[in-house]
Protein backbone atom coordinates (compact mmCIF):
# COMPACT_ATOMS: atom_id res chain seq x y z
CA UNK A 1 0.00 0.00 0.00
CA UNK A 2 1.44 3.33 -0.92
CA UNK A 3 0.61 6.96 -0.87
CA UNK A 4 -0.71 8.91 -3.81
CA UNK A 5 1.92 11.50 -4.48
CA UNK A 6 -0.29 14.34 -5.42
CA UNK A 7 -1.36 16.40 -2.48
CA UNK A 8 -3.96 17.99 -4.68
CA UNK A 9 -6.38 15.15 -5.11
CA UNK A 10 -9.57 17.07 -4.51
CA UNK A 11 -10.97 20.54 -5.07
CA UNK A 12 -8.30 21.21 -7.61
CA UNK A 13 -8.86 23.99 -10.05
CA UNK A 14 -5.36 24.42 -11.32
CA UNK A 15 -4.01 21.49 -13.35
CA UNK A 16 -6.20 21.31 -16.40
CA UNK A 17 -6.97 17.98 -17.97
CA UNK A 18 -6.60 18.15 -21.69
CA UNK A 19 -8.94 16.80 -24.30
CA UNK A 20 -12.13 17.45 -22.36
CA UNK A 21 -14.39 20.49 -22.45
CA UNK A 22 -13.35 23.32 -20.17
CA UNK A 23 -16.22 22.86 -17.73
CA UNK A 24 -15.16 19.27 -17.08
CA UNK A 25 -11.44 20.05 -17.00
CA UNK A 26 -11.17 20.29 -13.23
CA UNK A 27 -12.18 17.82 -10.52
CA UNK A 28 -14.18 20.58 -8.94
CA UNK A 29 -16.07 21.35 -12.15
CA UNK A 30 -16.94 17.70 -12.82
CA UNK A 31 -18.10 17.21 -9.21
CA UNK A 32 -20.31 20.27 -9.35
CA UNK A 33 -21.87 19.14 -12.62
CA UNK A 34 -22.67 15.77 -11.05
CA UNK A 35 -24.09 17.63 -8.04
CA UNK A 36 -26.33 19.59 -10.34
CA UNK A 37 -27.58 16.43 -12.02
CA UNK A 38 -28.47 15.16 -8.56
CA UNK A 39 -30.31 18.39 -7.84
CA UNK A 40 -32.24 17.94 -11.09
CA UNK A 41 -33.20 14.47 -9.92
CA UNK A 42 -34.87 16.02 -6.86
CA UNK A 43 -36.54 18.61 -9.05
CA UNK A 44 -37.86 15.89 -11.37
CA UNK A 45 -39.42 14.23 -8.35
CA UNK A 46 -40.86 17.53 -7.19
CA UNK A 47 -42.58 17.99 -10.51
CA UNK A 48 -43.68 14.35 -10.45
CA UNK A 49 -45.54 15.01 -7.20
CA UNK A 50 -47.16 18.12 -8.67
CA UNK A 51 -48.15 16.18 -11.79
CA UNK A 52 -49.54 13.37 -9.64
CA UNK A 53 -51.63 15.88 -7.70
CA UNK A 54 -52.81 17.51 -10.91
CA UNK A 55 -53.82 14.20 -12.45
CA UNK A 56 -55.64 13.10 -9.30
CA UNK A 57 -57.53 16.40 -9.07
CA UNK A 58 -58.02 17.46 -12.66
CA UNK A 59 -61.63 16.36 -12.90
CA UNK A 60 -62.45 17.86 -9.49
CA UNK A 61 -63.74 21.09 -10.95
CA UNK A 62 -66.37 21.89 -8.34
CA UNK A 63 -68.39 24.82 -9.63
CA UNK A 64 -65.53 26.11 -11.80
CA UNK A 65 -64.47 25.69 -15.41
CA UNK A 66 -63.31 22.35 -16.80
CA UNK A 67 -59.96 21.84 -18.50
CA UNK A 68 -61.65 21.56 -21.90
CA UNK A 69 -63.41 24.86 -21.47
CA UNK A 70 -60.41 26.64 -19.98
CA UNK A 71 -57.85 25.64 -22.62
CA UNK A 72 -60.09 24.82 -25.57
CA UNK A 73 -61.22 28.38 -26.28
CA UNK A 74 -57.85 29.61 -27.39
CA UNK A 75 -55.08 27.16 -28.17
CA UNK A 76 -52.75 29.77 -29.67
CA UNK A 77 -51.41 30.88 -26.28
CA UNK A 78 -50.01 27.58 -25.06
CA UNK A 79 -48.94 26.61 -28.58
CA UNK A 80 -46.88 29.79 -28.84
CA UNK A 81 -45.43 29.22 -25.38
CA UNK A 82 -44.39 25.71 -26.41
CA UNK A 83 -42.59 26.78 -29.58
CA UNK A 84 -40.91 29.70 -27.82
CA UNK A 85 -39.56 27.46 -25.10
CA UNK A 86 -38.40 24.78 -27.57
CA UNK A 87 -36.58 27.47 -29.55
CA UNK A 88 -35.00 28.89 -26.41
CA UNK A 89 -33.73 25.43 -25.54
CA UNK A 90 -32.11 25.32 -28.99
CA UNK A 91 -30.50 28.76 -28.65
CA UNK A 92 -29.29 27.86 -25.17
CA UNK A 93 -27.71 24.74 -26.67
CA UNK A 94 -26.02 26.94 -29.27
CA UNK A 95 -24.56 29.06 -26.46
CA UNK A 96 -22.89 25.95 -25.00
CA UNK A 97 -21.74 25.00 -28.49
CA UNK A 98 -20.11 28.39 -29.02
CA UNK A 99 -18.50 28.22 -25.60
CA UNK A 100 -16.89 24.93 -26.57
CA UNK A 101 -16.05 25.77 -30.15
CA UNK A 102 -14.91 29.30 -30.28
CA UNK A 103 -16.81 32.52 -30.53
CA UNK A 104 -17.40 34.14 -27.19
CA UNK A 105 -19.27 37.06 -28.68
CA UNK A 106 -21.75 34.70 -30.33
CA UNK A 107 -21.96 32.82 -27.04
CA UNK A 108 -23.14 36.01 -25.33
CA UNK A 109 -25.53 36.74 -28.18
CA UNK A 110 -27.19 33.33 -27.85
CA UNK A 111 -27.54 33.77 -24.09
CA UNK A 112 -29.23 37.12 -24.61
CA UNK A 113 -31.58 35.61 -27.19
CA UNK A 114 -32.38 32.73 -24.82
CA UNK A 115 -33.18 35.19 -22.05
CA UNK A 116 -35.42 37.22 -24.33
CA UNK A 117 -37.30 34.11 -25.43
CA UNK A 118 -37.64 33.16 -21.77
CA UNK A 119 -39.04 36.58 -20.98
CA UNK A 120 -41.59 36.39 -23.77
CA UNK A 121 -42.61 32.93 -22.51
CA UNK A 122 -43.16 34.36 -19.03
CA UNK A 123 -45.03 37.31 -20.52
CA UNK A 124 -47.43 34.98 -22.33
CA UNK A 125 -47.93 32.89 -19.22
CA UNK A 126 -48.68 35.94 -17.08
CA UNK A 127 -51.14 37.08 -19.74
CA UNK A 128 -52.78 33.65 -19.78
CA UNK A 129 -53.08 33.54 -16.00
CA UNK A 130 -54.49 37.05 -15.80
CA UNK A 131 -57.06 36.22 -18.47
CA UNK A 132 -58.21 33.20 -16.47
CA UNK A 133 -58.37 35.22 -13.28
CA UNK A 134 -60.30 38.02 -14.93
CA UNK A 135 -62.88 35.42 -16.01
CA UNK A 136 -63.22 34.35 -12.41
CA UNK A 137 -61.16 31.18 -12.72
CA UNK A 138 -58.81 31.64 -9.78
CA UNK A 139 -56.78 29.39 -7.58
CA UNK A 140 -59.56 29.28 -4.99
CA UNK A 141 -62.28 28.32 -7.48
CA UNK A 142 -61.71 24.58 -7.52
CA UNK A 143 -59.23 21.84 -6.76
CA UNK A 144 -58.50 21.52 -10.48
CA UNK A 145 -57.61 25.20 -10.79
CA UNK A 146 -55.50 25.09 -7.60
CA UNK A 147 -53.53 22.21 -9.09
CA UNK A 148 -53.29 23.88 -12.50
CA UNK A 149 -52.00 27.21 -11.21
CA UNK A 150 -49.57 25.55 -8.84
CA UNK A 151 -48.11 23.13 -11.39
CA UNK A 152 -47.79 25.62 -14.23
CA UNK A 153 -46.86 28.45 -11.87
CA UNK A 154 -44.07 26.39 -10.31
CA UNK A 155 -42.65 25.83 -13.77
CA UNK A 156 -43.00 29.55 -14.49
CA UNK A 157 -41.18 30.39 -11.28
CA UNK A 158 -38.40 28.04 -12.33
CA UNK A 159 -38.13 29.77 -15.72
CA UNK A 160 -38.08 33.21 -14.09
CA UNK A 161 -35.31 32.08 -11.77
CA UNK A 162 -33.48 30.68 -14.79
CA UNK A 163 -33.61 34.05 -16.56
CA UNK A 164 -32.18 35.91 -13.55
CA UNK A 165 -29.56 33.22 -13.07
CA UNK A 166 -28.57 33.37 -16.75
CA UNK A 167 -28.19 37.14 -16.46
CA UNK A 168 -25.88 36.67 -13.52
CA UNK A 169 -23.75 34.19 -15.47
CA UNK A 170 -23.71 36.49 -18.52
CA UNK A 171 -22.39 39.26 -16.28
CA UNK A 172 -19.65 36.99 -14.93
CA UNK A 173 -18.64 35.82 -18.40
CA UNK A 174 -18.45 39.42 -19.60
CA UNK A 175 -16.32 40.41 -16.62
CA UNK A 176 -14.09 37.38 -16.26
CA UNK A 177 -14.13 35.72 -19.66
CA UNK A 178 -14.58 32.02 -20.25
CA UNK A 179 -12.51 30.01 -17.79
CA UNK A 180 -13.09 26.64 -16.12
CA UNK A 181 -15.29 28.25 -13.47
CA UNK A 182 -17.51 30.38 -15.70
CA UNK A 183 -17.69 27.60 -18.30
CA UNK A 184 -18.95 25.24 -15.63
CA UNK A 185 -21.51 27.80 -14.49
CA UNK A 186 -22.81 28.32 -18.01
CA UNK A 187 -22.96 24.59 -18.63
CA UNK A 188 -24.99 24.09 -15.45
CA UNK A 189 -27.46 26.87 -16.17
CA UNK A 190 -27.94 25.44 -19.66
CA UNK A 191 -28.66 22.00 -18.18
CA UNK A 192 -31.26 23.67 -16.01
CA UNK A 193 -32.80 25.40 -19.02
CA UNK A 194 -33.08 22.22 -21.11
CA UNK A 195 -34.54 20.45 -18.10
CA UNK A 196 -37.26 23.11 -17.83
CA UNK A 197 -38.01 22.55 -21.48
CA UNK A 198 -38.56 18.85 -20.78
CA UNK A 199 -40.91 19.69 -17.92
CA UNK A 200 -42.81 22.03 -20.21
CA UNK A 201 -43.23 19.33 -22.82
CA UNK A 202 -45.01 17.29 -20.17
CA UNK A 203 -47.13 20.23 -19.07
CA UNK A 204 -48.03 20.77 -22.73
CA UNK A 205 -48.95 17.11 -23.11
CA UNK A 206 -50.59 16.29 -19.80
CA UNK A 207 -52.22 19.62 -18.97
CA UNK A 208 -53.02 21.36 -22.23
CA UNK A 209 -53.34 18.71 -24.95
CA UNK A 210 -55.07 16.22 -22.65
CA UNK A 211 -57.26 19.06 -21.43
CA UNK A 212 -58.58 19.94 -24.87
CA UNK A 213 -58.97 16.34 -26.02
Amino acid at each position, binding site marked *: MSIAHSGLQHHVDEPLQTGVPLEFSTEDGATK*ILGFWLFMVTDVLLFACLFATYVVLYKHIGAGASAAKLFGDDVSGF*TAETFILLTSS*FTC*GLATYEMRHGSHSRLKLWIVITMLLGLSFIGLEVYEFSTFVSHGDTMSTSAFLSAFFTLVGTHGAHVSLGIIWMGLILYQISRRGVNPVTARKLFIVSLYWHFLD*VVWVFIFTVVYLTGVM
Partner: protein
Amino acid sequence: MSTVPAKAPAPETHQGGFPWSHVAGYLLSLVLTIGAFALVFHAKLSFHETLFVILFLAVLQILVQLLFFMHVTERHGPSYHMMMFGLAMFFVFVIVGASIWIMSFGSMVS
Protein backbone atom coordinates in the same frame (compact mmCIF):
# COMPACT_ATOMS: atom_id res chain seq x y z
CA MET B 1 -1.67 17.40 -27.90
CA SER B 2 0.97 17.00 -25.27
CA THR B 3 1.32 20.57 -24.13
CA VAL B 4 -1.77 22.65 -24.05
CA PRO B 5 -1.50 26.12 -22.61
CA ALA B 6 -3.47 26.50 -19.40
CA LYS B 7 -6.96 27.97 -19.63
CA ALA B 8 -7.45 27.15 -23.27
CA PRO B 9 -9.81 24.52 -24.56
CA ALA B 10 -8.27 21.37 -25.91
CA PRO B 11 -7.39 21.45 -29.62
CA GLU B 12 -10.04 19.20 -31.05
CA THR B 13 -12.79 21.23 -29.45
CA HIS B 14 -11.32 24.43 -30.81
CA GLN B 15 -12.50 24.17 -34.37
CA GLY B 16 -15.45 26.17 -35.59
CA GLY B 17 -17.96 24.48 -37.83
CA PHE B 18 -21.69 24.17 -37.94
CA PRO B 19 -23.71 22.87 -34.96
CA TRP B 20 -25.39 20.08 -36.95
CA SER B 21 -26.48 18.03 -33.98
CA HIS B 22 -28.13 21.01 -32.31
CA VAL B 23 -30.08 21.82 -35.45
CA ALA B 24 -31.10 18.18 -35.80
CA GLY B 25 -32.26 18.14 -32.18
CA TYR B 26 -34.25 21.31 -32.66
CA LEU B 27 -35.95 19.99 -35.79
CA LEU B 28 -36.76 16.71 -34.07
CA SER B 29 -38.31 18.51 -31.10
CA LEU B 30 -40.43 20.61 -33.48
CA VAL B 31 -41.57 17.55 -35.40
CA LEU B 32 -42.51 15.71 -32.22
CA THR B 33 -44.47 18.70 -30.92
CA ILE B 34 -46.31 19.28 -34.17
CA GLY B 35 -47.00 15.56 -34.32
CA ALA B 36 -48.61 15.56 -30.88
CA PHE B 37 -50.61 18.64 -31.77
CA ALA B 38 -51.84 17.18 -35.06
CA LEU B 39 -52.76 13.93 -33.39
CA VAL B 40 -54.97 15.67 -30.85
CA PHE B 41 -56.69 17.99 -33.29
CA HIS B 42 -56.83 16.00 -36.50
CA ALA B 43 -56.49 12.27 -35.93
CA LYS B 44 -59.47 10.14 -35.08
CA LEU B 45 -58.09 7.97 -32.32
CA SER B 46 -59.88 7.26 -29.08
CA PHE B 47 -59.01 9.26 -25.94
CA HIS B 48 -56.81 6.57 -24.47
CA GLU B 49 -55.01 5.82 -27.73
CA THR B 50 -54.24 9.49 -28.25
CA LEU B 51 -53.11 9.89 -24.67
CA PHE B 52 -50.81 6.92 -24.98
CA VAL B 53 -49.25 8.16 -28.22
CA ILE B 54 -48.73 11.76 -27.11
CA LEU B 55 -47.18 10.58 -23.85
CA PHE B 56 -44.86 8.40 -25.90
CA LEU B 57 -43.94 11.43 -28.04
CA ALA B 58 -43.24 13.41 -24.84
CA VAL B 59 -40.89 10.66 -23.67
CA LEU B 60 -39.09 10.91 -27.02
CA GLN B 61 -38.76 14.65 -26.36
CA ILE B 62 -36.93 13.86 -23.11
CA LEU B 63 -34.47 11.75 -25.07
CA VAL B 64 -33.97 14.51 -27.63
CA GLN B 65 -33.17 17.07 -24.96
CA LEU B 66 -30.91 14.67 -23.06
CA LEU B 67 -28.98 13.49 -26.12
CA PHE B 68 -28.76 16.58 -28.30
CA PHE B 69 -28.61 19.39 -25.76
CA MET B 70 -27.74 18.09 -22.31
CA HIS B 71 -24.70 16.07 -23.39
CA VAL B 72 -25.93 13.24 -21.23
CA THR B 73 -23.68 10.67 -22.83
CA GLU B 74 -20.49 12.61 -22.15
CA ARG B 75 -18.56 10.52 -19.68
CA HIS B 76 -15.88 11.84 -17.43
CA GLY B 77 -15.55 8.87 -15.16
CA PRO B 78 -18.46 6.55 -14.41
CA SER B 79 -21.80 7.95 -15.57
CA TYR B 80 -23.48 8.14 -12.17
CA HIS B 81 -25.69 10.96 -13.42
CA MET B 82 -27.26 8.65 -16.00
CA MET B 83 -27.90 5.96 -13.38
CA MET B 84 -29.53 8.44 -11.05
CA PHE B 85 -31.56 10.03 -13.80
CA GLY B 86 -32.78 6.63 -14.94
CA LEU B 87 -33.76 5.74 -11.39
CA ALA B 88 -35.54 9.11 -11.14
CA MET B 89 -37.60 8.24 -14.22
CA PHE B 90 -38.58 4.96 -12.55
CA PHE B 91 -39.69 6.79 -9.40
CA VAL B 92 -41.60 9.37 -11.44
CA PHE B 93 -43.50 6.49 -12.97
CA VAL B 94 -44.08 5.00 -9.51
CA ILE B 95 -45.28 8.26 -7.94
CA VAL B 96 -47.62 9.28 -10.73
CA GLY B 97 -48.84 5.78 -11.57
CA ALA B 98 -49.34 4.63 -7.99
CA SER B 99 -50.98 7.92 -6.99
CA ILE B 100 -53.54 7.47 -9.74
CA TRP B 101 -54.03 3.85 -8.77
CA ILE B 102 -54.35 4.55 -5.05
CA MET B 103 -56.45 7.68 -5.34
CA SER B 104 -58.84 6.35 -7.98
CA PHE B 105 -61.04 4.71 -5.35
CA GLY B 106 -63.91 7.16 -5.18
CA SER B 107 -62.90 9.80 -7.66
CA MET B 108 -63.67 10.31 -11.29
CA VAL B 109 -60.15 9.47 -12.44
CA SER B 110 -60.44 6.31 -14.44
